[in-house]
């Protein structure tokens, strides 16, 4: 099962048994993605806390 990262366009392999609402990380851009649909497999950016870089 494959899906595309909405942020960077990476092709992400979803392991068998992936469920809706699960969170996966994009291996390329690190975005945290929510599985919003399984048929077809669709990912959306999960809400993220903007981290402070501290400078």
């Amino acid at each position: 099962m494959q899906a595309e990262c909405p942020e960077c366009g990476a092709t992400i392999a979803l392991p068998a048994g992936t469920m809706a609402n699960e969170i996966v990380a994009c291996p390329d851009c690190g975005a945290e993605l929510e599985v919003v649909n399984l048929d077809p497999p669709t990912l959306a950016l999960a809400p993220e806390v903007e981290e402070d870089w501290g400078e």
Partner: protein
Amino acid sequence: MSLRVSIVGASGYVGGELLRLLLDHPHVSIIQATSARNAGRYLYQVHPNLRGRTNLQFVHPDTLQPCDVLFLALPHGEAAQAIERYASLAERIIDCSADFRLRDPAVYQQWYGSAHPAPAWLERFVYGLPEVNRAALTGARYASGVGCNATATNLALLPLVEANLIDRSRPIIADVKVGSSEGGATVNEASHHPERSGAVRSFAPVGHRHLAEVEQVTGLRNVHLSITAIELVRGALATVHAFASRELSEKELWQAYRTFAREQPFIRIVKERQGIYRYPEPKILAGTNYADIGFAYEPATGRIVSICAIDNLMKGAAGSAVQCMNLMCGFAETTALTFAGLHP
């Protein structure tokens, strides 16, 4: 007779620098220095360089009392939130944060993502860079601080802007290298020594908020800012790449920089043909209020590389703030700001 001065946010890095400067200022006495987390501790337990200089203890910010001059050195947003209270306590205020730097509330909203909490106060504050606002600061009641990266960029650009030497149709790139004290005293993952040490971190390749200040001060609309955090504690170096509006000679550029630096006690032109220190170098500015400026020019392409070095905590924050106070209160402008810096 001494003015009574207080510092809110005195446990931070800008606050600490204000303490260091004001303790040696002949015309003021520090009456309160606040820190919620360190209330009751001696200043020197947080700022060890002040050991032997003062036995003052931090007080909680809630206990702040009336004073003549109030310095605010707080995280973003805190000063604007409480400005009425602070103004009720002090005749004069110098706020080191970004809260009162921008004149236009719309610009504030664009860069900070929410409406300004006290927009009426924006016009009461004079932008606290004496090199451009000396007259307005003289006798003023309220001064904002300056952004450190903005200041390095502005002081690199102003000699060229004032002499009208920049081609405004071509992009201007300000690539600023900065030290870790810019982030303040609060610990975070990014500032953990094993990670931060030796880093060359593309901290803000695009989108840095100080651009708003650069546009306000220089009037330019084609400046592009990037910030890289390097191995350094204090210091910022702006390398600003611009293109000449016409063919230039080196002498004309010298003339523009001299004109800008004239009568500015803390601006020095650094451009040497030999030796190790040919251009502005932040490492020799630690603790000083100087902004060193210099340039290189490439006739074949018309590129001017204008360079400015400062200590972010001094000319980029506390030093300029004290310089503002001197102007606001009628003291000699350089009072308490004469440390020459170290070599090596």
